Each structure stands twice: as structure tokens, then as C-alpha cells.
């Protein structure tokens, strides 16, 4: 394995060598230090059209572009269709656009493996923005030419795509995040309002409720709901006050509350696929999960299929609304693309209102475009409306990977409830998260 790893490193190095060897020679050194001042620049309509005309005039030969998006058939089909439409839009230019399959969950990893060989455009979830920006892999959206993403998309989405006041990607969908799926044949709306009611109702019927308590991503919902914070600071390290003792609800209070929920016999700590299997078996009647599980729960719950915002939970005898991570999918343009201009125009095209509606209908993911989000197909989905409902309590996911390693272990410890000193446990976790 060591050798395999090494040869991978060297192979990657060799590829880079051959690329830079032919590439670096003809890159002109910029004389002017005309740096971007951070803001997206406002161009007049004439300037925008002139820029596109200039680009068309300066384009010689075939424009090669690669687009990476989710590997599902629906995504691939709708993207190919949109790419064809884009080609028709600019008839004078000869395009060779390839649509490749790349799981969005690992997109940043794949791009960063060899940023010079990665696709010109890629669809990725918003939590990867920081890693990509940190590695300099994203072309900042210095200006837009056909529409203005910051006007047409929800403010939260645009914020999520912005790092240090600079827009780095084109918002595409607003469908990442978690909420509660439940079976309304067993649970009433009152039951799903709080964890206490939910667990009591499940216990009464001998059923279970699932959530991945030992996953840092889900665990966040409890701590953030109680007003505790974790986020990445400017120096790239996490800030975390989950061990705070001077807040309205202290970290220890929340930790104890989580342990209390997990101690209930009806609460099952399980990941997505196991939850779906249990739901299908009929044991599990509610689960905290995301839109990717929609079809699974639709099948499992049948006519009882329903979804809603996350329940409240009891801290120090008070009911506190759970929070969650909000998530979006973006289209990013590779900073190392050979055809930056065309890549930017294609990204704009794929993320405009019309395209977002088509993608939303084809894939069932809620559009981030405000107008597209109002279309009927999208409003009528229980999962999407639950997600929108929960989004009022949701926060942006801005943490580095240390959060997941140490946070997951904290979740496991809280779930098992076998700690002596909860404050010490939280202190250690925070030390790991903020390292």
C-alpha cells in the first residue's frame, strides 16, 4: 500500500510536471497589479454584452470544457440537455463539452487531488467551499454577464457561496440539510413537535425513532439549537464553545439532554441506510435525515409518508428548538480552467432560473433561485417543504474537518452516556475541534 500511495503521489507529480512543462511557458506575467478589491464588479449592460462579444471574437478553434455533476441518471440527463441548449445559445462557437459523473460528496477531494486535471466546472455542496477556496481551486465570480446570482437567489444561499466577502460559486440548489421524516399513521403532528412526545409515542407503540447521534453533522442540531456555536475562523481553525459554562444553556446542560434522549429505548443511533432498512421493516416510524432519503421513506411509510421540521428537546426543563446545518449545492469554475471565460458563462447558464427549474423537476432537489422555488412541483413535496421549514432554524456549515473527527467521538460518548465528568469530555472535544 505504501508503494501504491507513493506511486500515486509520483504519478500525480509526473502528470503535473508534463502539464506545467507545456503550460507555464506561455503564461504572461501580469504587469499591472490590478487586484480584485473583493466585491463583485458592477458592469453596465453594454459592457457585459461587449465582454461576451469580445470573448466570441477572441475564441479560435474548439472550446473544450468538462463538467462534473452527480452520477445519478436524472442529473446526467438534465445536465446534458442544458449543455445542448447552451451550445445553441452561442451558435458561432464550436464547443466540445463533456458531462462527467462525480459524486458531489467527494467532489472537493477529487478536484484537489489534481486541480490542474480536474473538470472546468463542477457541482459541489457548500461545505466544500472553504477547502476549495483554501486550495485556490475556485475562480471567484468577479462579474456576471447574463444575470445576477445575488439578486435572484435567496440571501442565505449567496452568503454560503461567499468567502471573505467574495462570491466564489454559482448557487444551484438549496436541498442539503436534515429534518424529520415520520409516519403519520403512527404519529400525530403534536407527537413530532418534541423529542419527549415523539419518544413517548414511539415507546407506547413499541416502535423506534432514528437519528445518527454519533455523527457530528447531526449532533450539531442540539448544540446549535441551544445557542452554542462552532464555526471556522479566519485563520482556518474552528471556534467552538460547546464547553461553555457561562451561556444561557451550558454545554454540559445540552450534553446531558442529548444523553437523556439517547438513553430512551425508542431512540436508535443509526446511519442513513440502516434507518431506511428499519423503516422498511416497520420498526422505525420517524428518522432525522435529508432529501437523499426521500424515495426510501416514501416507499417505507407509504400513505403515511410525511416530513416536518426537527422537534424541540428539553434542556433544564425548557423546550428548545433543534437547529441544523443548512446546505446548498453550487456550480464552481476551476481556477485552473483553460477556458475561464466560457466556463463562467456556462456556469451562469446552468444556474439561471430556467435551468434551476428544470434541474429541480428532474432531480427533486429544491432550487436556490427564489422564483424557481415557487413552482408547483417543488412546493408540493413534503420533504422540500419540511426542509424549507427547518431552514428558519438552520445555520451555515462552516467548519473544518477536525469538527467531524472529534465531534463524532463526542456524539458517540454522549450516546453511550458512560462518561464521569461531562465538562471534561466537552473540554477535550473542544480542544480537538479547535486544534
Amino acid at each position, binding site marked *: 500500500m505504501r508503494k501504491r*500511495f507513493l506511486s500515486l*503521489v509520483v504519478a500525480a507529480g509526473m502528470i503535473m510536471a508534463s502539464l*506545467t512543462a507545456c503550460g507555464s511557458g506561455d503564461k504572461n*506575467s501580469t504587469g499591472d497589479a490590478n487586484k480584485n478589491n473583493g466585491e463583485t464588479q458592477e458592469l453596465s449592460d453594454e459592457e457585459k454584452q461587449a465582454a461576451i462579444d469580445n470573448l466570441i471574437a*477572441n475564441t479560435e478553434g474548439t472550446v473544450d470544457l468538462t463538467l462534473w455533476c452527480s452520477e445519478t441518471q436524472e442529473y446526467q440527463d438534465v445536465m446534458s440537455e442544458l449543455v445542448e441548449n447552451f451550445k445553441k445559445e452561442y451558435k458561432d462557437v464550436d464547443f466540445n463539452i463533456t458531462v462527467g459523473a462525480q459524486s458531489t460528496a467527494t467532489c472537493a477531494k477529487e478536484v484537489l487531488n489534481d*486541480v490542474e486535471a480536474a473538470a472546468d466546472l463542477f457541482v459541489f455542496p457548500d461545505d466544500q467551499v472553504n477547502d476549495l477556496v483554501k486550495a485556490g481551486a475556485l475562480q471567484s465570480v*468577479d462579474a456576471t454577464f447574463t444575470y445576477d446570482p445575488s439578486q435572484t437567489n435567496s440571501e442565505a444561499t449567496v452568503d454560503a457561496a461567499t468567502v471573505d466577502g467574495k462570491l466564489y460559486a454559482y448557487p444551484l440548489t438549496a436541498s442539503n440539510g436534515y429534518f424529520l421524516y415520520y409516519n403519520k399513521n403512527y404519529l400525530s403532528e403534536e407527537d413530532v413537535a418534541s423529542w419527549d412526545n415523539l419518544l413517548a409515542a414511539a415507546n407506547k407503540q413499541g416502535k423506534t425513532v432514528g437519528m445518527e447521534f454519533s455523527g457530528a453533522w447531526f449532533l450539531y442540531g442540539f448544540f446549535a439549537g441551544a445557542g452554542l456555536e462552532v464555526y471556522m475562523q479566519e485563520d482556518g481553525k474552528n471556534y467552538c464553545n460547546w464547553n461553555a459554562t457561562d451561556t444561557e444553556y451550558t454545554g454540559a446542560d445540552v450534553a446531558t439532554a442529548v444523553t437523556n434522549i439517547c438513553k430512551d429505548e425508542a431512540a436508535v443511533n443509526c446511519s442513513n441506510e440502516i434507518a431506511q432498512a428499519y423503516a422498511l421493516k416497520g420498526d422505525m416510524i420517524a428518522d432525522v435525515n435529508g432529501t437523499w432519503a426521500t424515495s426510501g421513506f416514501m416507499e417505507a411509510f407509504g400513505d403515511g409518508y410525511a416530513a416536518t421540521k426537527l422537534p424541540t428537546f428539553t434542556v433544564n426543563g425548557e423546550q428548545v428548538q433543534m437547529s441544523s446545518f443548512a446546505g446548498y449545492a453550487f456550480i464552481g469554475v476551476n481556477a485552473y480552467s483553460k477556458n475561464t471565460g466560457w466556463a463562467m458563462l456556462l456556469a451562469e447558464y446552468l444556474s439561471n432560473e430556467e435551468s434551476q427549474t428544470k434541474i429541480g423537476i428532474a432531480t427533486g432537489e429544491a432550487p436556490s433561485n427564489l422564483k424557481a422555488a415557487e413552482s408547483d412541483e417543488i412546493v408540493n413535496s413534503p420533504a422540500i417543504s419540511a426542509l424549507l421549514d427547518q431552514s428558519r432554524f438552520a445555520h451555515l456549515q462552516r467548519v473544518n474537518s477536525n469538527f467531524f473527527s472529534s465531534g463524532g467521538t463526542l456524539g*458517540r460518548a454522549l450516546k453511550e452516556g458512560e462518561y464521569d465528568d461531562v465538562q471534561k469530555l466537552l473540554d477535550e*472535544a473542544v480542544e*480537538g475541534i479547535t486544534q
Partner: protein
Amino acid sequence: MIDKLEDYYTELHTSVKKGDLWTRLSLLIMGIGYIVRGQIIKGILITLAEIGFFTFTFGFSMHYILKLSTLGTVQREEHLDLVTLTKTVNDYDNSLMILLCGIIGILMILAFLHLYIVNIKKVYKIQLRKENGKHINSFYEDVKSLLGKKFYIVLLALPSLGVIVINIIPIIFMACIAFTNYDIDHQPPTYLFTWVGFDNFKSLVTLGDSTTVTFGYVFIRILIWTILWAFFSTITSYFGGIFLAKLINDRNTKWKKMWRTLFVIAITIPQFVTLLLIGKMFGDFGIVNSFCESIGLTKLLVKIGVLNASSTCIPFLSSPGWIHIMVILINLWIGVPYQMLSATGILMNIPKEQLESAKIDGASDMQIFWKITMPYMLFVTGPSLITAFIANLNNFNVIYLLTSDYVTANMQFANSNAKESDLLITWLFTLTNDYSNYKIASVIGICVFIICSVLTIITFRKMIYGGREEDFQR
């Protein structure tokens, strides 16, 4: 050693001192000494190699070698012209490229220097042959001897080149990365990384200021587990394989071929499939657990105190201790069929006379097994046992695939991005793949390399040196 070095330079000294004009001119144009003495093609080829080397070095690698001391100073800057929608990028440094091409460049220079010195000596020898009126090989004769008497040179050329490209350059490259700050904050090509001396090694062996964020704490524990794992997984599948082979070979066993085939089938199913499947089966909600629960085993274990009162499942792959034992047991499934196959072959080769005479002397089956079969087996399979041990030190698949769902409950492991069941190699993988911490990963890589090579050298010396091969034949 020193004698050889001395000879090397005396020879060089005489060659330059006693060489005639042409020999000395070869110091400048390497092929000239051959050309004037009739070896025209050889002379041209060597001169071409010389030209090739200088173009490579001064046209390509020197650029990188000069920057090796800093690993680059110019960071990438780009500018998008909004009027023409075209992008300009400055002529930036890529630390990774500088390191890689720098290393290759230096190796080329060293190789060339050696060739250069050998060349002068060769030219001088040819000068002597000419003076003494001896025969000088033509190009045709040279090629003929390479394909005939000196064919081993041709044969070894390709493997040696392979070793250099696949092994030596990556090892040097990795060793160098261990002395840099190549991590998530310093990722080429956009950002530069640079030399930091022994800082990474220090962070691995010292406890640091923090009580929980320490690679040292985790490193020593993972190292111990790695060695324990390699030892037990090798021993268990080795003996498991021998017993299985004995069992199948026993004259009372029927359908020998069928049994053997069944176990070979286990080999042919890709490990990825079997391991992922077994991992799911032994999961907290897996089929094994629901079976144990339905027959009341889980309750029994709780009652006798093996499990906590609150346990609802047997934590086969979700609790330290359990997970360590389980991976060794599951590894049996992967390892035993291979050992069985090789053991079968060897068992069939044990001289029948020895076994029969032992029986006539009244030895029991057990005595025969421990006094004749096992020593024979151990002798024949000794070296392969060591290779198996080394391979198990780096047994990535079993550990990674079986424990990928395991979340550690130990905060000190979590804070170092590790878990109790990790081997050095899987920890290294997680650090690079999930946390882009290349610097620490390289330090671990060097440790693995040192452990593996020291063990290999020691054990092979003991087993093969000292004419022990003849020992047995007597």
C-alpha cells in the same frame, strides 16, 4: 569499502595524468577518445548522451534545483480581465514540482558524474590497448557481447530502471516531504510549502503543550497495535492453513478435491466484496447481532458481565478490544485459504520414508506432526512467513474496510484523526485522504519503511545466511 573508494580515485587520477591528448580531450567531449580509436558509433552515442544530459540539466532541471533551498517564492496570482473575459496568471512556483524535478535533476547529475568518471577510465584503457597493439572491439562486436556474454546487463537494465523510478525516487520524495509543512494550508499549485526541519518528527514523538491534541500519544499506541496485529494475523492464518491442509489431506477425509475447491473459491471473490459484506454482517444492526439477540446470546453476555447492562447489541466492530479480536478472526477467512494451498503442496513433498520410519519406531501422530512435519514446514515456509508478516504490517484492506464505520470513543485518538483499530498505514491514508496532512503522513511513512526494512534485513539474514540451506539437506 574504503579500499574500493581509494582504487576508484587512483584509477581516475592515473587516467587523467597518463592519458594522451585525446584521452584528456574526452574530459570535454566524452566521445572523442573512442572516435579517434575507431569506435565511431560508440563515441557518437556517448557524446549525444552528454549533450542530452546538459540540455536536460540546464534547459529543465537546473531551474528547479536552484529553487530547492526555498521550494519556491512566487505564489500564484491570477487576474481576470472583465473586458475580454480572458485570464492572466503570473509565472508562479509550484513547490511540489520543484521538489520532484529537483530530486530527479540531482539524481541525473549524480548518475552523469559516475558515467563521466567511468568514461575517462574506459577511454584510458582503450588508449593503452591501442598502444600495446591489442584488439579494439568494433560497435558490432560490442553489441554482440551485450547479447551474448554480457547479456545479464541487458536483462537487468529494465528492472533497475523500474526500481529507480518506482521505488527510489518516491522514497526520497516522501522522505523530503516529511521535512516540509505540506498540509491543508499549504497546497500546491496555488500555495507554496517550505522546509521546516525536524518539526514534524518532534510533534510525533513529543507530547506537546496540549494534553489531548498529540500525535505522540496515538502514534505509540498505533505502532504497538500494528505489530501485534501483524504477529497475530500472520500466526493465526499460518497455523490455520496448515491444520486445514492436514485435515483435508487426512486419509479419512472424503471428497478432498471438493473441499480444496471450496476454499479456493473464497480466494477468488474480491476482498472488497467479502470484507464490506462481513463488516455489515457484524455491524451493530447487522444480521449476526440480530441472530445473537434472538437466541439470547446478547442477554447472556450482559448477565455474565461481559457487556454493559445498557448494551442492546454485541459491539463486534464498534468497541476497542472486540474490534481488535474480530479483525484478526475475520482475517482468518481471507488468509487461511492461501496458506492452505501452499501448505498442501509442501505437505505432499515431505519424504514418505521419514514419516514411515518414524511410525515404525512407534511415534504417535502428534509426535510426527511436531517433530517432523512442523520443522519441515517452518524451514520451507520461513521466508514466506516473514513476507507475510511484512505484508500484514501494511494490510490496508482488511482494517480499512472492516472498520470504516467505527467511530472511536477515545477523544485523544479522535483529536489525532485516528482510531484504536488503525494500523500505521490506514492512519496514514486517513491523514492524507481526509485531512490533507501530508507532512505527518510522510513521517509515518518513513517509520513504516524503517520498521519494514529493518525486520526484513534481520530475519532474512538469520534465515538465509550462514549456509543454513545446506543444513537441512544434510
